[in-house]
């Protein structure tokens, strides 16, 4: 989902920075509030960031014969809500842009929007919805992480399609074209991300499995 350095026209690059900025500012404020009000949640916040750091470094082969990577933003979105992931995701994207020439500074706004904003918000929405529908924690976490991952890659497809409409079939044709590259490749990887998120979430909740695990993780309940 990394749009490479210099590959978005200037207006698009600036536009995506504008769209992402308020989310990142809100994320910083939320992050500061969490650290101030529940300092015991710091460990888990860092773990949520570490999970994104880890998963977005793993490029996995897929059924389309190409490689892509999960995003790891679902875990933090489920535990802390989507806002904090805009900040944690941006840190990961900055690391990759500066040290790996993967993604870029000019495309950071667009990449933050897909990976650190849309993905986490979809994960969080799915998590809440699954909870209302009576799904177990494991099932809800699985679908939250999986669908958030897919949403990130679909967003990248739309962003590229807006910048590079197909010469004959326009933007819809371009969405299909980029979606064919990203979304189809991502399908099995999104399932893997869902599985890994369930395993890590359970491992992080320690032996506190019986109570509301997620509240423990948030540091809401000081056990």
């Amino acid at each position, binding site marked *: 989902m990394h749009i490479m350095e210099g590959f978005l026209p200037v207006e698009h690059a600036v536009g995506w920075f504008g769209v992402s900025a308020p989310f990142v500012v809100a994320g910083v404020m939320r992050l500061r509030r969490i650290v101030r009000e529940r300092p015991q949640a710091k460990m888990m916040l860092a773990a949520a960031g570490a999970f994104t750091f*880890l998963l977005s470094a793993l490029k996995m082969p897929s059924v389309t014969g*190409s490689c892509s990577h999960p995003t790891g933003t679902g875990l933090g979105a489920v535990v802390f809500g989507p806002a904090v992931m805009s900040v944690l995701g941006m840190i990961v994207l900055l690391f990759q842009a500066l040290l790996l020439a993967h993604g870029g500074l000019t495309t950071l706004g667009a990449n933050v929007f897909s990976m650190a904003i849309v993905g986490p918000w979809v994960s969080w929405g799915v998590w809440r919805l699954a909870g209302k529908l009576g799904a177990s924690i494991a099932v809800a976490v699985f679908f939250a992480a999986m669908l958030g991952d897919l949403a990130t890659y679909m967003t990248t497809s739309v962003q590229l399609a807006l910048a590079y409409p197909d010469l004959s079939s326009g933007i819809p044709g371009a969405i299909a074209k980029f979606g064919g590259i990203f979304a189809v490749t991502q399908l099995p990887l999104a399932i*893997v991300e869902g599985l890994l998120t369930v395993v890590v979430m359970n491992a*992080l909740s*320690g032996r506190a499995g019986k109570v509301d695990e997620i509240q423990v993780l948030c540091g809401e309940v000081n056990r």
Partner: protein
Amino acid sequence: MNNHRAMWLLAAAVVIVSLPMMVPIFQGSFRGADDQAMAVITQSRPDYQPWFQPLWTPPSGEVASMLFAVQAALGAGFIGYVIGRRHGSASRRDDHDGD
């Protein structure tokens, strides 16, 4: 969650990741999807020039893979540390309960 379920979930993840490389119908170069998308762009817009270059590029694939490994190791290492701390404090609590 019991450890058996975690094992099965991890095994399923390994199978999903390995299958594309093992089953002949999923052929391909296994290059990055990001690169493929950029190739599509440069094909349909041969005159497009990226207007900004990365400030620094790893000098070789080896250096890049090292940095990716560092990224993964830092992430996994810290998660392992937090899991260990949580399990440690959970078992201390249990010891206390037994008094």
